[in-house]
C-alpha cells in the first residue's frame, strides 16, 4: 500500500462522482454524485495525512470535510423539496431559469 495507489483509488472515486454529478438530471442523483466526489476527497486527505504528515491537526481537516458533506446534503434535500413543491419537478434542467 503506497501513497500513489491510494491516491489513484481516490481519484477514480472522485471522477465517478464527477461523471454522476455532471450527467444526472435529478437533483438527488446529482447530490449522490457530489457525495461520491467528497468520498474520494476524504480518502485522498486520509492518505496524505498518513503518508506525509501524520500529525493530530490533519485529522481536523477530515472532520471538516465530513461536516461539509452534511451541509451539502441538508441543503440539497431542502432545495430538492423546495423545487419539488414549487414546480412539481426535481430535474436540474427545469431549474435553469434560477441562474437568471
Amino acid at each position, binding site marked *: 500500500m503506497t501513497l500513489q495507489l491510494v491516491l489513484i483509488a481516490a481519484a477514480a472515486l472522485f471522477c465517478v462522482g464527477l461523471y454522476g454529478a455532471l450527467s444526472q438530471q435529478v437533483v438527488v442523483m446529482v447530490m449522490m454524485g457530489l457525495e461520491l466526489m467528497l*468520498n474520494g476527497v476524504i480518502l485522498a486527505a486520509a492518505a496524505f495525512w498518513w503518508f506525509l504528515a501524520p500529525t*493530530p491537526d490533519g485529522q481536523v481537516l477530515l472532520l471538516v470535510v465530513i461536516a461539509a458533506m452534511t451541509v451539502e446534503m441538508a441543503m440539497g434535500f431542502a432545495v430538492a423539496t423546495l423545487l419539488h413543491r414549487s414546480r412539481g419537478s426535481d430535474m436540474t434542467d427545469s431549474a435553469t431559469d434560477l441562474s437568471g
Partner: protein
Amino acid sequence: MLSTIVFSVLAVIALASGIAVFRVDSMARATYALAVSFVAVGALLLMFDLDYIGVITILMMVMEMAIMAIYMIMFMGMNPALMPMSMVHNKRWSAILAVGTFLLLAGGALLVPWPARSGSPATDLTASLGEAIMGSKMLVMLTVSPILFATIVAALVLANPRGRYDRWGDDLQRARPDDPQQGGLGK
C-alpha cells in the same frame, strides 16, 4: 503485503459500488450502493489507524443514505420493480470530462515527487484529535458549528412551507396549531 491486498479489495468495493450508483435500475439500489461505497472508504480509513474518523464516516453516511432513500422514493416514485431508468443529459461530455480529470489526477499522483513522511502518528489518535479540536484547531470548529447551525435553520426555512401564521392563525391566538399531522406536544 496483507495490507495491500485488504486495501485493494476495499478500494475495488468502494469503486465498484460507486459506479453501480449510476448504473443500477432502482433508486433504492443506487442509494444503498453509495452507502456500501462509503462503508468501504470508512474501512479504508481504519487501515490508516483513523479509528474515530472511519467509524464516524460509516455512521454518518449510512444514516444519510437511509434518509436519502426516502427522498429518492418520495421525489422519483419508483417501485422496487427494477424499472429501467436513464435520466442523464450530456452523457458523453460528462464521461470525457470525468476520464480527463481522472488522467490528470492519477498522473499527478504518480509523477509528483511526494516528500518523505515527517513526524509519526500519536499513540492515541482519537485523544490527539480531541486535543487538536479543543486546542490548536479550536477556531476551525468554532467556525464549523455556526455554519452547521445556519444550515439547519436555512434548510428548515427552505423546506417548510408553513409559517407560524399558518399554524397559529393570523393573530397567533389559536389554542392548538392547525397542523395536518398533530404532534406529540401540540406546540
